[in-house]
């Protein structure tokens, strides 16, 4: 069965690139959903119960960390693996993320699609 991946990112272009990359790279193994803010992301997560969430930290209204706190407060959300995407590595946010059970990080503009695909593949191993 295809793995469900939810991308939560307000950068629509990046979101589309990531989605296309995951779909193409997953060779039919990934079903990808996209949300453009935290609230929408939470809605989709609750409905779809994804196998992995790719989460942007800097977003309007509900930011990444707030989303994580909300997610981890739910029974269904405690164990969903989360990979955080970030443009600005911020130690404070990273340590906050670690406390909230984040699986991995990648820096948006530095990581290639291939590198991201490998990171995603590791989660499902």
């Amino acid at each position, binding site marked *: 069965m295809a793995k469900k991946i939810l991308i939560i990112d*307000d*950068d629509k*272009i*990046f979101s*589309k*690139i990531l989605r*296309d*990359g995951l779909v*193409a790279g997953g060779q039919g193994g990934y079903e990808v959903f996209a949300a*453009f*803010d935290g609230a929408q992301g939470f809605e989709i997560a609750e409905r779809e119960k994804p196998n992995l969430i790719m989460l942007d930290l*800097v*977003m*309007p209204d509900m930011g990444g960390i707030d989303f994580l706190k909300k997610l981890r407060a739910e029974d269904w959300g405690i164990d969903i693996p989360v990979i955080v995407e970030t*443009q*600005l590595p911020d130690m404070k946010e990273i340590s906050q993320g670690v406390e909230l059970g984040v699986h991995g990080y990648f820096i*948006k*503009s*530095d990581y*290639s*699609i*291939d590198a991201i695909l490998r990171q995603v593949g590791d989660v499902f191993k």
Partner: protein
Amino acid sequence: MFPRELLPIVLILVGLYVVVVGLSFWWARRIKREIKEKEQEIKHRLYEIAILKEIADRTGYSLNIQKILDVIAGSLRQFIEYSAASYMLLEPSKIVFKADLDRSVSPAFIKEIRGRMLGSLEALLGRELADMQIEETLTGAIMLEDMDEPVRSFFNIPLVIGDRLVGVLTVAHTKAGLYNEEEMAILYKIVSQASHAVTSLEDVVKAEQDKITAMLESMVEGVVMTDRDYHIVAVNPAAKAIIGETATGAPTIFDLAEKFKGVFDIKEKLEESIKLDKVLTLDGAAIGGKYYQVLVSPVRSNAGPMKGQTLGGVVIFHDITHEKEAERMRNDFTSMMVHELRSPLGNIKKIGELMRSSKVLEDKQASSEYVDMLYESSSVMLDLVNDLLDVSKLEAGKFEVAKQQENLKELITDRVKFFNTTAQGASISLASFTGEGVPDLVSIDPKRVTQVINNLLSNALNYTPKGGTVTVECFMHKQGVAIDDEAGHLGMPWVNDDPQKTTAALADSVVVAVTDTGEGISPENLEKLWNKFIQFVSSVRKGGDRKGTGLGLVIVKGIVEMHGGTVGVGSKVGVGSTFYFTLPL
């Protein structure tokens, strides 16, 4: 034979001779006496000059009356005869008695003069001094028990500094008949001159002290000074404000240590600074919600008897909250800028990666989507780079406007036409009004004014919800009338920002305004509108579908000011905003 008739003549001549000789003797004696007197006077004068010079040389600008008295007492020998020259000084907790003996005297002699001097002091002060401790020092010849000559001559001179009696100076002798008032006049003079010098010096020192105190009191920096045992000896109001309320009102080193607990150990720093004899600087100590640069420095005496010795330490608090805030904003700005440039660039790179590796190019729809994304990402980047470049040019004063006679009304009409499509797409009605008397040609840089109107219009359209209205207004301003009143008379929509009618003072100009029916801006955010750091950073934080870089208004202000005009904004939350600028004629 001697003629008798000549006798009277001879007698007269003899008499004359006697008178002349007698007179000569008298004259000679008188002259001699005068010379002697002159000599005496010169001697006195020389002594006076010598001793005053000696006082000045040996004591400098000293406030130490005892030192001055030592010099005077030590010099008296050259000038008058005495058995003992002594002084008695009143100090807060004791009396200093010092006698210089020129010849040996009996202990009874010393006891006698000491008693007389104490008596004089008591009489002059009008109070008893019997229970005060007397510190006695004898110099010169030694006392001999078997001497029995009493005090036969004695003279007292009171020592007065300012209007305060501080002691007496005394000469005493076993010989009788010395020290008449006349002889003592010079001593009086010297003592009074010395006292006068000390008095003036005290005044100067006090005036200086007052100045230093006033300076310390009015300093913005907090200053705390301690002695070598870390007792606080001075603290100015600014420092008190930092330390806050203390139990006794006078802060102690413990209050200070408590205040800086966890930030730094103030006593340790003071010790270190005094021990190493160097100034320690602590940057950005966070105390009570503010940031301070803290300087800890040893205090050394650089004059006087304590010269070179450490007197204690001083701690200076310099409030750098503003600088810290500015630094934080600059850092935020830089990292946000990097973030903003990296995002589209990273996207462009990844699009390239996808197009190379997957079958995107074979899929016509997908490749057209990717080309659109490439176009959008690079446009975002280019806009940002252009805006940043404009802002930095404006800040460096290198922004140039090329003014020419240009039809402003046409330019506005053209802009309104250009934005009409966007407005229609967002279901916003876009209207424009032009008042009477606006000249056809205005001296402007058309490219830059277009940029200003573009910025204002795109902002207005961005922040206006569906069904709202955006209006572009253009009318004449006459000096003496407030711009909002002028708009009101013309019946143009206007969100007022000028209750004090300050715009009335602006010179005759053309006003261009953009009024929207958007969400409005809160008063605290209004203040931040023109700050590039805040605008840029908050626009990035907002993320999402925002358009523009947040630097637009900063550039608008810069361009308008380069034209000699003014920008302004009036806004009410829930009503909308009016952004306007003036172009002087």
